[in-house]
């Protein structure tokens, strides 16, 4: 029993240890790595994926998966930018309305994906992949393939204004993370995600409305994707279909690397924070070491395989499709 516990504990802390080890390693290779400036850089690049990954974390805890984030982020970014521009293009005026509107759009995207998945009873990976394609198509149609510029200095101050050495968006993102933690820890919905992931049939037998929990999970995830879209737009000053590019791979990798098992029922938003940091530290470290950026996808690919393999109790699995 004690052996089991220690193995469990090791698995629990392994992601954090890996993160620390990576930081030590890159610092040894290049001392410039360990500087406030570089950390600020890492945190900026980590912010949008963190938001997206937090949303997807809830879905993975339920044992489902969401692959629609690229589409959802693109739609949120484009609608936000369009609305923002139409409302005067500045947060000082009516432009602020675009912020909550964007979050609502995200929730709607998630609601649609969740309803398709639960209502038509098709596996979430295919339902969300399809709806992701639809989202990308939608954003393309709205922009006609063009970029929308968002140059309001007040909005961009999320990136430009610094507080304690980190841009404002990092602080806002941290607040969102805390909110996600609150949902995970303190609300019925958050706990129900764990119940569904830990034993869907048992949860159902105990009277839980599993279908409603699932749909709510997707809608909630959509809100976090919208946050990711906002930060991504603030970072680049541009909203386009490509704003969503690569979020799917990075966020799923981060989640599993952080120790939230693909089978559901374990992990949480703090794991995801660690996972996102691992992925971004590796990216940043590779650049500091002078490795080309495009190796990233390959490294992520290996990372996700290793993380899933390590987190799998293979004896308990009969079939994997």
């Amino acid at each position, binding site marked *: 029993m004690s052996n089991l516990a220690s193995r469990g504990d090791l698995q629990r802390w392994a992601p954090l240890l890996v993160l620390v080890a990576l930081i030590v390693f890159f610092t040894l290779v290049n001392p410039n790595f360990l500087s406030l400036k570089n950390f600020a850089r890492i945190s900026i690049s980590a912010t949008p994926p963190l938001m997206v990954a937090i949303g997807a974390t809830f879905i993975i805890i*339920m*044992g*489902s*998966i969401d*692959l629609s984030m690229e589409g959802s982020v693109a739609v949120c970014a484009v609608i936000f930018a369009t609305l923002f521009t139409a409302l005067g293009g500045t947060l000082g005026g009516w432009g602020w309305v675009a912020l909550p509107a964007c979050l609502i759009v995200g929730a709607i995207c998630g609601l649609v994906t969740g309803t*398709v*998945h*639960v209502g*038509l*009873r*098709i*596996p*979430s*990976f*295919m*339902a969300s*992949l*399809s*709806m*992701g*394609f*639809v989202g*990308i*198509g*939608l954003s*393309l*149609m709205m922009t*006609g*393939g063009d970029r929308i510029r968002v140059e309001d200095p007040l909005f961009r101050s999320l990136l430009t204004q610094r507080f304690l050495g980190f841009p404002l968006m990092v602080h806002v993102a941290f607040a969102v993370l805390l909110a996600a933690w609150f949902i995970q820890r303190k609300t019925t919905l958050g706990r129900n995600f764990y119940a569904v992931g830990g034993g*869907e*049939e048992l949860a159902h037998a105990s009277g839980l409305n599993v279908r409603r929990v699932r749909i709510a999970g997707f809608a909630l995830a959509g809100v976090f994707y919208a946050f990711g879209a906002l930060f991504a737009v603030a970072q680049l000053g541009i909203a386009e279909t490509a704003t969503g590019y690569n979020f799917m*791979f990075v966020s*799923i990798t981060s989640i*599993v690397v952080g120790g939230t098992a*693909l089978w*559901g029922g374990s992990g949480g938003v703090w794991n995801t924070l660690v996972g996102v940091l691992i992925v971004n530290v590796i990216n940043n470290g590779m650049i500091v070491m002078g490795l*080309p950026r*495009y*190796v*990233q*996808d*390959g*490294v*992520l*690919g*290996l990372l*996700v*395989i290793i993380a*899933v*393999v390590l987190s*799998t109790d*293979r004896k308990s*699995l009969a*079939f*994997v*499709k």
Partner: protein
Amino acid sequence: MNLHSLKKHFPWMTLVALTLFVGILDPNFLRLDNLIALAGDISTLFIMALGITFVIYIGSIDLSAQSVANMITVLATLFLAQLGWFAAPVCIAIGALFGLVSGYVSNRLKVPSFIATLAVGGIALSVGQYASGQKALYMDAGLRNEAFGWIIGTTAGLPREMIIAFVLLVVALIIERRTVLGRALQAIGAGEPAAIASGLRVNRYKMIAFAISGAFAAMAGLIFAVKLSGGSPVMANGFLLPAIVAVLVGGTPLTGGVGGVLNTFIGALIVAVIRTSMLYLNVPPTAQQIFFGLVLVGAIALTIDRSKVRTVK
């Protein structure tokens, strides 16, 4: 005749109905040369879908096909200069190898196939970007014609790609219907526990299915590269969605076990007709993505065998 037995005939009935519908909109659509051009255009996509069929048939999925094809366009362009026609078998072997890795990761390491193939696809993408230096590459026209001239052009009025696709269909059909491998895959798709309890080497056959998918994706990439006389790591983007749609609307469900390569043939034609009809109806190309996404959802929902998925996650 009940709905269940009717379901088998849905795909071709859909194809006929769609073709008639477009034909009524514009009788020119039904002209032979137009239909041939239509089939020619879909060939590359069809070849990729053929490979994916084997994976979906055993109840898994391959999301790496597009990335593998992308990578192969780059590698084919690079290898052509050094290896000449021999670049073709090398490229196909590399594709099969990537498929084999996906198969190993998903079957031996027990990583769900959609994640395994997504990850392997990421690796393929990296290789493509690395090999190309992140720019578009061009084939030397002389070399290309010497080594792969037979891929382009027409024979008896038929585009060569279409003939190649047809030959590959026959090959796939023979694998499916006449070989031990095909029978084993059928058993795995229709009833994996029984296949295991009959002493079949289920894991090995499943890995081979992924390798076939990789090899077909490589062939699609190769033909595409020759056709466009070059390669780039984003060249085959936009292939994955219609390829999977072709498999599913053809009547091979996500849960596997029924359908097969002939179904995918019909599915690919349905995709081709839909694409063309959108041109006739003046639907902007950007809307195609939305439409195919929705078609995919519909096709999955209609064909999936819900008795095989106890809880839908």
